[in-house]
């Protein structure tokens, strides 16, 4: 019973950020149980992603080799990882804190009748394992103990710093990961729920989760039309526009633009929060931003405790003034 197995997600070979966070936490764990860091990958481009994993400390990467599992099937992928877990006997199986990370690992946990601990921020191996995990999407921490033959963990998003891994330098010194094809047993029952179609994102749009700058609006924006000023500022900064739950519940913005506990978690370089008071529901969605600038009429609103910078004032005056100043410096 040694080593750690990580479910690694990727988009056509490019590693998912939350999976990189899971790899960092997994590598830090190996000083405990020891043994190899291994990975499991699925889908088109998996072999490319697998080869790049040596830089992340992975010794062997198991690439699932079955056309029936090429398209995402939560139960099928979970079954494959459960089979790999039985074959490799790792001390822990870890996934990123993504939709798929939670979902696939929960299938592993359910079908092997084991406990699973989600949104872990800190972990020490042992008997019992000692963990700190997020509740309320990170506005509360729980210290917990886990007694299990295999620790099944997901890693809280945007808590573990991935910058510590320098792929370039590490790739030069680290041995490449061994890429091992893995052909699991496949039960048709586990393929019933699978992705059967895809709809591409709207062309040309900057996704909120990838944007370097996000301009967010709250109750203070006042209307759907009020977002035009935020759109203009975001456009000048190459950013994207989102909103608080108030805004999506009022129908001013589509729900897919919601930043918060029941919407998106964003991690831009700068988040500009306009007319947002800062309920916990919203703060947990934006606190991974490197910097937060709040524009708000109320200097005592909760957003001020989360923000790094603030302008006190009406966003409908302040935002257009910023936009005008950027245009003026750009020469008109």
């Amino acid at each position, binding site marked *: 019973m040694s080593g750690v197995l990580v479910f690694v997600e990727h988009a056509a070979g490019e590693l998912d950020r939350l999976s990189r966070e899971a790899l960092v936490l997994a590598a830090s764990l190996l000083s405990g149980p020891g043994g190899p860091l291994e990975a499991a990958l699925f889908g088109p481009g998996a072999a490319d992603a697998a080869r790049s994993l040596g830089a992340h400390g992975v010794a062997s990467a198991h690439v699932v080799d079955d056309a029936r599992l090429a398209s995402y099937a939560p139960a099928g992928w979970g079954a494959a990882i459960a089979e790999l877990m039985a074959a490799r006997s790792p001390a822990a199986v870890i996934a990123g804190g993504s939709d798929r990370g939670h979902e696939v690992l929960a299938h592993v946990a359910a079908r092997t009748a084991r406990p699973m601990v989600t949104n872990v921020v800190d972990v020490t191996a042992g008997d019992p394992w000692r963990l700190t995990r997020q*509740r309320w999407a990170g506005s509360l921490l729980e210290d917990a103990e886990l007694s299990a033959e295999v620790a099944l963990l997901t890693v809280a998003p945007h808590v573990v710093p991935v910058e510590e891994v320098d792929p370039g330098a590490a790739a030069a010194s680290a041995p490449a990961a061994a890429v091992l094809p893995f052909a699991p047993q496949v039960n048709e029952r586990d393929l019933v729920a699978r*992705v059967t179609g*895809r709809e591409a994102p709207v062309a040309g749009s900057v996704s909120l989760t990838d944007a370097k700058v996000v301009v967010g609006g709250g109750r203070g924006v006042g209307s759907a039309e009020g977002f035009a000023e935020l759109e203009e500022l975001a456009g000048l900064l190459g950013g994207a526009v989102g909103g608080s739950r108030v805004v999506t519940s009022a129908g001013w913005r*589509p729900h897919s633009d919601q930043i918060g506990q029941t919407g998106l978690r964003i991690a831009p370089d700068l988040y500009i929060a306009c007319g947002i008071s800062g309920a916990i529901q919203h703060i947990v969605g934006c606190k991974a931003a490197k910097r937060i600038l709040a524009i708000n009429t109320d200097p005592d609103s909760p957003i001020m405790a989360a923000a*790094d910078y603030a302008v006190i*004032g009406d966003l409908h005056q*302040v935002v257009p003034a910023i936009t005008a100043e950027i245009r003026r410096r750009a020469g008109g």
Partner: protein
Amino acid sequence: MEILVCVKRVPATGGRIALTPDGQEIDTRYLGFTVSPHEECAVEEAVRIVEAQGGSATVLTLGPAAAEEQLRDAMAVGVDRAILLETDGREFDPVATSSAIVEAIRVQEAAHGRFDLVLFGNEAADTGDFQVGIRVAVALDRPVVTGIKSLTLRDGTAFARREATGGGWETYEIPLPAVLSVKEGLNLPRYPSVPGRLRAKRKEIERIQPAWSRNGTVKVGLRLPEEEGAHAEILGNGPDTAPTVVDLLVRIGVLAS
């Protein structure tokens, strides 16, 4: 269509969380209670499906006696009947919770027939375990997908969509009976009417005492995360602050100088 929707009573936390002196619970003395927005949408969806296609909607919760309030909230917007898996206040872990729900579903289905669809919120607002729906589905040997934000039921099949990693949507076609965990945005939940509230007040609630068990995890205690930085640096007041803001944008590298 026979629909079961599972919800969880949680405090409405608002702007700040306070803990009890022993650090074991949230101090709820001054808080109201609610269910997660995901679950509000699950309840609304169950009611809409029954309105459009007939059948009945049932709401289930595992929680203390006071969780009756959340069951009546669901019945006030049109859910037909309610089941309370009444705990003694001890926290049930995800394994114990899903076992209790599976047991209740088996009993209900033996008496009233099969649920075509069992709905959950994507994750509980408080513990965020992301697993109870999947554990229930695996135990019942039914297909399950989480994160659903769009749903159509036609000819015994659930056509469901969820947001894909990196943007866009992915679609699923799942034969019923099935289990789905849904996210806020699936619909816009209605407010309860006064007659709806009155009707809900008079309805019977079926009560079951579920078995508590410990399954490998122990909560040691809760604590608040350390505050990062005390308070925002105030750059100024009103639109005259714009040049200072633009200087900042240049300094932190989000705007070319």
